């Protein structure tokens, strides 16, 4: 049996985010040139699937004239503060409770970040 062609990748928001990334890179560089690497940071509460982003960005970067850069993803942890014992801790897994007292009463301090940090140009393109 052949599964129907759902054109499923159109349904990822990572595709529009990949376009936003090339827009940001293009305006920072002032031109479109082949890149060697693109460094991004993704937090666990950004709602972004790193692998979907990699898939989409690879296609979009090529179409938009940035060559075939390696997408280097720095995956951060969320920072939390326990509301029972004030301990600060970091996690990617929200099933994890406070490592000091076991409470799940907490406030999230960070974890939504999604930034283009830097790009590295191919040799001879500086």
């Amino acid at each position, binding site marked *: 049996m052949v599964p129907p062609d759902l*054109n499923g990748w*159109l*349904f*990822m*928001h990572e595709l*529009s*985010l990949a376009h*936003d*990334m090339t*827009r*940001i*890179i293009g305006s*920072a*560089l002032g031109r479109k040139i082949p890149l*060697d690497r693109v460094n*991004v940071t993704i937090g*666990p*509460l*950004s*709602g*972004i*699937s790193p692998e979907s982003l990699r898939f989409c960005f690879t296609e979009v970067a090529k179409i938009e004239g940035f060559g075939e850069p390696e997408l280097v993803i720095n995956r951060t942890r969320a920072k939390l503060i326990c*509301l029972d014992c004030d301990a600060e801790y970091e996690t990617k897994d*929200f*099933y994890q409770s406070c490592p000091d007292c076991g409470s*799940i*009463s*907490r*406030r*999230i301090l960070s*974890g*939504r*970040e*999604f*930034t*283009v*940090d*830097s*790009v*590295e*140009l*191919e*040799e001879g*393109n*500086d």
Partner: protein
Amino acid sequence: MCDDTVDQKVDIATSVMSRNDRFAADNRKLLGDKDIYTLNLISSPGAGKTTVLEFMARFFGPRMAVIEGDIQTRRDAERIEKAGCQAWQIETGGACHLDAHAVNHALGHMNLDPSELELLAIENVGNLICPSGYDLGENMRIGLLSLPEGDDKILKYPSLFSSINVLMINKIDLIPHLDFDVDRAIEECRSLNPDVLVFTVSAKTAEGMEEFCKFVELNFI
């Protein structure tokens, strides 16, 4: 060669959501200037967003307008119009979320001037992940979770449930038939989001809905 590579690195340090966030700020200003209070309603498909909005349309009448986000069809906008409100349908044509630019475009087509208009409800595309990163310019973000989806969904989708102001648990008329532990869902939502306000409702039987509408109303009257 290593030195060359370092020399060719260009720092950018820009949030990818910055463009969306600029449109969201524009929307917030435009709506704020007109004293229109705005809701962003997010859930998975079938959780009951449109049924909740139909009740709200009957409660608020022409005081409310609705933006409907769907991948295809005007069906939801027609349901809202029939219930008594102005509705604008955004057909995303494949995109899994609304962004602030699409909402900005919709606002340009809607009649926001009637003096009785006080509330705008935006029904996002049914999805628990993609809409969570997009500020639309709302004043209140509502996450809707319905009993048939299961009580384990909150910690599975922390990007949404950590970002909402209000959790609505819908279809509570099904409690006798399902294993959904309402207290567990609320506790897990508070573990991501200690300030979240919770309403348990059935949009179908209307249980809890008037209380919810009066709570929304308190924010702008």
